């Protein structure tokens, strides 16, 4: 495993299907080290399934996945375990453990992978991670059922960051957040990615997020990745879905917002 490999995730020829419903038919994708890659696609095109496939929760029918140059396999070898602690995942639904407090949720992966840590250090680590994910300090001892939707997302992020991963998978982190919290979350993702040198695989429907923080965007349509590139590069393609996505009313609104912002900054 080479943490500085130029390609963090290499996906080749992934095919997935449920029964006779084909989801993926030969998906190829490279995620570069240190970038924030946005993944977009219509609802139900298999973005979440692709993420689950990459992290090994879903077994593809065909295809290969390499993470930091290490092929993913089913076995529980040391190399595979080592790979697993290199990533943090934030699920679409939060998936917090409902019987544990937020801080205890953050401690779960730490306890699992590093049983030698002292309770005091564990508590301290959980404390700064909770604050780092942008939660107020009093959220630590709260249970997931006592959190608002936005706080749940941040708690999910705190848990995803628990192991100091090099690779962060975020599934619709800003869905259901108010615009201010969504922007704050974007900023947080961006600054964490820069400070911690994270590679981020970011599934989103949020055009503002795409414009604000993504280095490149991959488009999932017709069971494949039909295009990857910066937004201007994507705009230059003539795929109908991409065109209606970025040039629809919302797409244009987000774009003007960015232009205005740039003009003000300049």
């Amino acid at each position, binding site marked *: 495993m080479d943490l500085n490999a130029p390609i963090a995730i290499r996906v080749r020829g992934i095919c997935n299907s449920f029964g006779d419903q084909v989801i993926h038919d030969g998906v190829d994708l490279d995620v570069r080290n240190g970038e924030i890659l946005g993944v977009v696609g219509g609802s139900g095109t298999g973005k979440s399934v692709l993420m689950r496939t990459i992290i090994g929760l879903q077994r593809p029918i065909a295809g290969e996945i390499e993470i930091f140059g290490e092929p993913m396999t089913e076995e529980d070898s040391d190399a595979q375990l080592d790979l697993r602690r290199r990533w943090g995942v934030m699920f679409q639904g939060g998936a917090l453990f409902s*019987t544990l407090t937020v*801080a205890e949720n953050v401690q779960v992966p730490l306890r699992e992978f590093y049983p030698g840590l*002292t309770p005091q250090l564990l508590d301290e680590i*959980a404390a*700064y991670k909770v*604050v780092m994910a942008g939660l107020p*300090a009093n959220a630590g*001892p709260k249970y997931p059922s006592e959190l608002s939707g936005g706080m749940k997302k941040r708690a999910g992020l705190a848990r995803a960051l628990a192991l*100091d991963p090099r690779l962060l998978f975020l599934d619709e982190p800003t869905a259901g957040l108010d615009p201010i919290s969504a922007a704050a979350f974007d900023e947080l993702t961006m600054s964490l990615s820069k400070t911690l040198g994270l590679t981020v695989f970011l599934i989103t429907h949020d055009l503002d997020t795409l414009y604000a923080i993504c280095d490149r965007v991959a488009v999932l349509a017709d069971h494949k990745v039909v295009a990857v590139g910066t937004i201007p590069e994507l705009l230059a393609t003539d795929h109908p879905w991409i065109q209606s996505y970025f040039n629809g009313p919302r797409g244009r609104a987000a774009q003007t917002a960015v232009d205005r912002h740039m003009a003000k900054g300049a």
Partner: protein
Amino acid sequence: MASMADFTETQAEAGRTLRVTGRMTLSGLADFPQRLDAVEAPVAAIDISALDRIDTVGAWIVHRFAARTGAKILGASDEAARLMSLVSRSEESVRVRPEAPNPVVRVVTEIGDATVVALRTLAGLVAFFGAILVATWDIMRHPRRLRINAIVHRFELVGVKALGIIGLMSFLIGIVIAQQGAVQLQQFGAEALTVNLVGRITTRELGVLMTAIMVAGRSGSAFAAQLGTMKLTEEIDAMRTIGVSPIEALVIPRMLAAIVMMPLLGFYATVVSIFGGGLFCWVSLDLPPITFVQRLQEVIPITDLWVGLLKAPVFGAIIALSGCFQGMQVESNAEQIGLRTTSAVVQAIFLVIVLDAFFAVFFSQIGWI
């Protein structure tokens, strides 16, 4: 692979300096934090220029050490400095668990809470029963609101799917009663009375009682878990907002299924137990089946059958009531579903046995002995 985190102490005129080497990352720590904690206070500086790698945990440990001993941090790389400033900005006192009160207060609080919960449960159960009666009345006035499909589906789950396990259980119980009875009665040369024993005890008591216990375990628990999960995922709230009454849509079908299926299952269990007992009598007491059936007709009064069948729907109602009630009480987390499911079964079986005792006294008072 780089080496584990380690440090060496050097003495200079300005004071002691710690020089840290190796990997200051989660995987490279081992007992490094404990050893660092053991270093006593005044330390002039901590030199981290020779580190291989650092992550936020490493940065936190250095930051904390510097704060405790007043050491200056020397030779931080860009990355280390960035991480250090990130963790120091994130430093705040955060509780990990809710505050635990002192033990005496806790015991007293727990006793108080338990009492309140018990009373509330009782009140809640009565209120729930009331809500069911109201819903039943509503449905009787507007029979179209009865959800036939849901009810038939429940009949299948509660009744038809239980036939196998209840049949097997009853068959074995019939054999056991006949066998144990025969051994005792043989001492008085009265093994022919085994027929009375098997016939009457299963018709009056065991057929229905064992069925009730089985249904409580199978369906009462399922009711609690289903409703509990729906409560957690806000499905029940969603129903209410759409204008569907959860009592009508979820509870009434389950109540009806249990009330209708219990007598049928109870009767079936009785017949299968008697069959088991008869088989035993035939094989080991040489009592031919024809004689067995004739003797049964002579010794079982028809009232025994009524005793069994009258109790059955009441037991069914109790089982469904406590299952649904406990399910609706679930709040906040997954552990509650487990607790409530357990309570549903325990409560149902307990109430069934208590009621059975009342029924026994009642029926003997009215002369159905």
